[in-house]
């Protein structure tokens, strides 16, 4: 089986992370899956798999899931000459399932965690409504990314940014203190050069620097993207992991996981995320252990600012 694509922001289009968090499993899964009942003989399972070209069948009755049977289970039954036994004796009963409302990212991490080819999908009432395979995910990703590419191409066509407006992406690497902060100083200089109000520049610079240093200190690396319009400065930081176990705790002042070495460099007091949140008008964070952390902050440029800025 082909591995899922590497979803690290450095190796993928930046919007990929947004796509996998904003798409639900419901939009990706195959609906109306072929199912069999517990007393269906294995010979029927064999025919269904062959006729429909599927490698796994859920065992369900009136929407209630009892198990799943795979090609491997069928091969074992064939070897043991057990084609007439009911599928309930060959199926896997402890099935890992996903739910319709979960984000696609959850399906991807589940596929990475387990080596199964497909997972049954349940609705809120725990009834089987679909099945999701790696193929389903890949088809969705390709389609969404094609849409994004088209969007980018049309954006490039319209690009006119000699002034304040800016779209720029920087990369950070783990523990790279030498370059940590370069993105923030570059953006600060851009804002000062375009006469953005001093107190606004300070808020933007602080949010940016806290998030940038967080990536250098805590993550295995990632990207920091800036979108500056006459209305607002939007900072999107995305890392490749390890993710935050408890986001609420990380937003508590004084909570830190930094080691003494980091502290000797003047960081790791546990003030970064709360401080970034404090100086921002909008703050969004999503983190998943072993996947990564995404933070988006927005700082509005007020009316007076728009008149001053050039």
């Amino acid at each position, binding site marked *: 089986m082909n591995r899922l694509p590497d979803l690290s922001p450095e190796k993928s289009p930046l919007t990929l992370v947004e796509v996998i968090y904003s798409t639900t499993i419901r939009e990706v899964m195959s609906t109306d899956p072929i199912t069999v009942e517990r007393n269906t003989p294995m010979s029927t399972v064999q025919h269904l798999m062959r006729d429909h070209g599927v490698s796994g069948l859920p065992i369900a009755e009136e929407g209630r899931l009892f198990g799943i049977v795979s090609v491997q289970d069928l091969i074992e039954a064939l070897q043991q000459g057990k084609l007439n036994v009911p599928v309930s004796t060959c199926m896997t009963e402890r099935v890992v399932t996903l739910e319709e409302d979960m984000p696609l990212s959850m399906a991807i991490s589940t596929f990475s965690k387990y080596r199964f080819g497909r997972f049954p999908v349940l609705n809120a009432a725990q009834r089987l409504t679909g099945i999701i395979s790696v193929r389903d995910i890949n088809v969705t990703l390709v389609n969404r990314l094609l849409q994004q590419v088209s969007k980018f191409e049309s954006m490039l066509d319209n690009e006119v940014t000699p002034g304040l407006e800016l779209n720029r992406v920087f990369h950070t690497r783990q523990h790279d203190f030498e370059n940590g*902060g370069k993105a923030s*100083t570059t953006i*600060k200089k851009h804002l000062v050069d375009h006469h953005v109000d001093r107190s606004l520049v*300070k808020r933007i610079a*602080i949010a940016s620097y806290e998030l940038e240093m967080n990536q250098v200190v805590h993550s295995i690396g990632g990207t920091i993207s800036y979108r500056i319009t006459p209305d607002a400065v939007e900072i999107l930081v995305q890392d490749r992991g390890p993710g935050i176990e408890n986001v609420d705790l990380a937003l508590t002042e004084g909570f830190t996981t930094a080691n003494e070495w980091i502290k000797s*460099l003047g*960081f790791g*007091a546990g003030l970064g995320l709360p401080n970034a949140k404090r100086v921002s008008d909008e703050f969004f964070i999503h983190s998943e252990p072993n996947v990564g952390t995404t933070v988006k902050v927005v700082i509005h440029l007020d009316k007076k600012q728009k008149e001053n800025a050039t």
Partner: protein
Amino acid sequence: MTFANLIPTLDATVFVSSSEMETRPVQHVIASDLMSDVLVAHLDDFVLVTSLASDQMIRTADLVGATGVILVNDKRPPASLIQLAKDLSIPLLGTALTKFAACLAIGKALEDKGDPA
């Protein structure tokens, strides 16, 4: 008081000067080696008094808009720090005074000379 006024006050060595140090006012002091604390301080027109001689210290000073930096305890700034301070136009002084003594001296000078305006 301006940043340049601090040179005699602290018997300071000028590692990096800037054209603005004669004019930009100094009204407050932030004394810390913890950059996380510097980033949460709500002050303008302040000098940073620190014994942390790292590149990140100068970046922090730049991002929070410090008027200048005073390196205490006779700390020698590495060449990379001096270069970065020049690139970012942040004046950088060094003094043999301790952090406490430097703060005391600046505090006294602020009382005597007050606001340049």
